[in-house]
């Protein structure tokens, strides 16, 4: 039973169907309902637009910066300037003309714990003379070339775990750039079949961003015989 229905119908029939707050807005030409709803939507709309713009600027910045960094990172290094010197003779190397002497007779230290079955350690004796200046915009590296394959040297840090006695006199590539006289061994982990190779010293010059930009390399042929006991 709809008790209020007649009353309700009467109300609907006579009412102007407008509450006081629903009076037409004579200035804007919009109903207040529309105007109120519009302002309610305007704030998030503006925020969305600002955020969208921020997102766009952010994206363009990251894309641009990333492209610039990719261009900067790709530094072309010309082929190394390689010179081969005879073993057991002193020669000058690098921009400082540091005196170097490499023994042509390296040593085969055999297998060590932690290395694979078919690998062994060999070492090359190196003497580097003292120079007056140290150079900061360079780095150095040692390699042993066997056939067409290059093996980087094992630094003292890696040798320390298994053979601390070897690590004490192990030379590292960075010592090429230092000024004091150095004498020691350069160690390599190589396949068991290796009996000779070329010992390479690389002098890498750096650009202002500390990227390698050029290489000077000096090579000396070496062969490896079994270790002489007690000769450390």
């Amino acid at each position: 039973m709809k008790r209020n229905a007649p009353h309700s119908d009467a109300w609907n029939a006579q009412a102007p169907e407008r509450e006081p707050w629903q009076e037409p807005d004579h200035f804007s030409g919009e109903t207040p309902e529309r105007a109120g709803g519009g302002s309610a939507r305007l704030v998030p709309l503006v925020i969305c637009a600002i955020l969208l713009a921020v997102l766009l600027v952010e994206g363009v910045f990251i894309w641009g910066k990333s492209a610039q960094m990719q261009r900067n990172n790709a530094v072309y290094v010309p082929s190394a300037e390689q010179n081969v010197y005879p073993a057991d003779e002193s020669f000058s190397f690098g921009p400082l003309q540091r005196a170097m002497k490499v023994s042509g007779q390296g040593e085969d230290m055999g297998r060590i714990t932690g290395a694979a079955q078919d690998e062994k350690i060999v070492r090359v004796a190196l003497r580097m003379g003292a120079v007056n200046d140290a150079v900061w915009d360079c780095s150095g590296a040692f390699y042993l070339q066997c056939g067409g394959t290059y093996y980087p040297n094992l630094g003292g840090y890696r040798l320390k775990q298994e053979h601390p006695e070897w690590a004490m006199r192990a030379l590292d590539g960075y010592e090429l750039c230092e000024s004091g006289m150095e004498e020691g061994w350069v160690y390599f982990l190589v396949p068991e079949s290796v009996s000779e190779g070329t010992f390479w010293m690389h002098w890498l010059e750096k650009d202002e961003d500390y990227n390698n930009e050029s290489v000077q390399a000096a090579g000396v042929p070496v062969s490896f015989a079994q270790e002489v006991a007690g000769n450390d």
Partner: protein
Amino acid sequence: MIEDTRKGMGLWVLAGLLVLAVLGVGIWGAVHLSALNMAPGWYASMEGVEIEPVQPEGAEEGYNYYRLRFVLTNNSNQDIFIAGWNLGVAPAKGDRYAVDVWEPWDENVTMETEPCVPVGCIGDVELILEVDPEEMEGKTVQITLDPYGEMPLKLGEVELP
């Protein structure tokens, strides 16, 4: 009125999502740019590619093995190591991991040889590839330098025999 409120709410939700997007892109961008800052750019090329089937000791059943050889010229400002993390392979089509560089794990080995091609040098590369024939589509394999890095360089392709 209710419809307007719903539209207003929808816009606030959109604004919230945009805030998340701005933050997300910002964080991703910072991580990406930071990684790029450390990533080397590469100048390298390969020549004389040769590939032949092999059966190495320790090979697993269900896989095919190939010896890949080529000569690599490195004019990048970093050494290129001859290992799967620095020189990678992937099929031109199909599952990314249908082809991989075979590097068998031995828990007793703590010190491995790390052959490389130094900066400014030309060196030989030899890799053993492990191929899952069921996941492989076609016979073309791509060879890529720094496959998992920020700026990988595609060196070329080789056809499996």
